[in-house]
């Protein structure tokens, strides 16, 4: 552990994140962004979800479709079993770079590449899937060897007891500033645990289950997930929850001190208030 460095005004510069955590964090951020955008490109080829092994085209669970309105205007609609909602401009129909409304599940600014190109989307997706898995394996291996995963991410009994108060504090946008900011709070721990050990592994497993070759050898994986189309639907639900996590994560950083927190994830150093001096 590197030594703290006292600063003026009762503040201390502490070493918050190790170099491997910082490096894998940023590699992961870029990788997930590429996987999201190329994944949406792939989804544009058949923007409909089903449960089970096959696609019952007439009855998707959720689908994104372009429709031509009575006045000839192109509209985008998201349909699910219970109803439909007009999503023109974002889902189903959106303006391309030349300003023309075009029929596409996701807008050009949300797909990689921008124009519709399934082959290119797959090329980006499957390349970055490797980077994602290797980077994740490095993070987990380092965390396991240094016992960081257990000490940093697993909440203590005492922390779990006070989870209600932590939740209230977070909702009031009161974040730990002093000694408590040296480690993750219980809400962070639970969120990171869920992402690292549930959401991301589900993304990998549902991704693998969609491969017909992998399925030929590991039928059980696809069957446990409910069939190939279920795996595909779960892959999308997984990425949606991941996107929600990232949005909350970025919002929390923005609210709790973006400069200080960004620096801690880049240089490793975080400024905290000196609790003892303050007393």
């Amino acid at each position, binding site marked *: 552990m590197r030594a703290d460095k006292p600063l003026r005004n009762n503040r201390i510069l502490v070493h918050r994140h190790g170099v491997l955590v910082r490096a894998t964090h940023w590699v992961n951020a870029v990788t997930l962004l590429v996987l999201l955008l190329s994944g949406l490109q792939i989804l544009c080829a058949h923007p409909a979800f089903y449960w089970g*092994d096959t696609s019952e085209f007439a009855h998707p669970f959720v689908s994104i479709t372009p429709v031509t309105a009575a006045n000839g205007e192109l509209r985008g609609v998201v349909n699910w079993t219970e109803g439909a909602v007009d999503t023109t401009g974002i889902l189903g129909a959106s303006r391309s770079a030349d300003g023309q409304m075009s029929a596409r599940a996701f807008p050009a600014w949300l797909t990689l590449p921008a124009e519709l190109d399934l082959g290119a989307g797959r090329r980006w997706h499957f390349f970055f899937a490797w980077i994602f898995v290797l980077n994740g394996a490095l993070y987990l291996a380092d965390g396991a060897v240094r016992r960081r995963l257990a000490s940093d991410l697993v909440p203590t009994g005492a922390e779990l007891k006070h989870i209600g108060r932590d939740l209230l504090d977070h909702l009031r946008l009161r974040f730990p500033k002093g000694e408590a900011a040296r480690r993750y709070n219980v809400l962070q721990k639970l969120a990171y645990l869920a992402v690292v050990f549930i959401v991301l592994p589900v993304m990998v497993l549902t991704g693998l289950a969609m491969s017909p070759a992998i399925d*030929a*050898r590991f039928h059980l994986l696809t069957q446990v997930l409910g069939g190939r189309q279920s795996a595909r639907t779960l892959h999308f639900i997984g990425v949606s929850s991941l996107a929600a996590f990232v949005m909350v994560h970025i919002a929390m950083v923005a609210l709790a001190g973006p400069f200080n927190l960004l620096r801690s994830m880049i240089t490793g150093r975080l400024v905290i208030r000196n609790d003892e001096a303050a007393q």
Partner: protein
Amino acid sequence: MTSGPDRRFWLRAGLTAILGAGVAACDKLTQSPQVNQVLDGAQTWNRRLHGLLVGSRALAREYEASAISVDFRANGTTSPDSDDYQKHVASGFADWRLQIGGLVERPLSLSLSDLKAAPSRSQITRHDCVEGWSAIAQWKGARLGAILERAGLKPQARYLAFFCADTLEMTLDGTGDYYETIGVEDAFHPQTLLAYEMNHQPLPVAHGAPIRLRLERQLGYKMAKYVMRIEAVESFANLGRGKGGYWEDRGYQWYAGI
């Protein structure tokens, strides 16, 4: 300190510039041949990893008859418009012949009844389209491996090329004609068939009559429909635009097990 509106202007201008540069850079990247070559490297890793994990013998999952899809979408060409093909349809493929040549000891010319008399296999399997959808059907066909044993592959033969009756894109040089290539090992997989029957009926025109390839552990675009000629080759560099298939020539991966 800068006043509100001014700061907002610079913030917005800065963000727009960064986003614009990012988007432009991404578009440049996606078009760069070097970048695409690097990205395509993953295809080799996937094929090798699948080779290690899956092996050449694992069978695709087979289903009960009750799992057969009511609605099995037909993609690509659904009725080749050439006169020759339409004449075959009209005559029930009575004069149709499958030519098997290239790097083989004994070139073959097989009628539909020859194929039906060859060692066959029936299987109920799931068809996965590159677009993302899946459908299940029963397929019966001649085992490609048995046919190739009869023709006798020469040792140099590494790929089987399938030439089809359909033209998906009109071109002057004929590179819009559908074709596909598969590896020799996959050709001898027990579930690899020249299917002439779908759901206990003669293969419909929309699904590739009189025969389509079944290559169960890969995606639908590998499973050429309307197959007219099979050639054993050492390399596919000289076929079409050199990438090993109609869709491969247009950016799809040659290895479609993922």
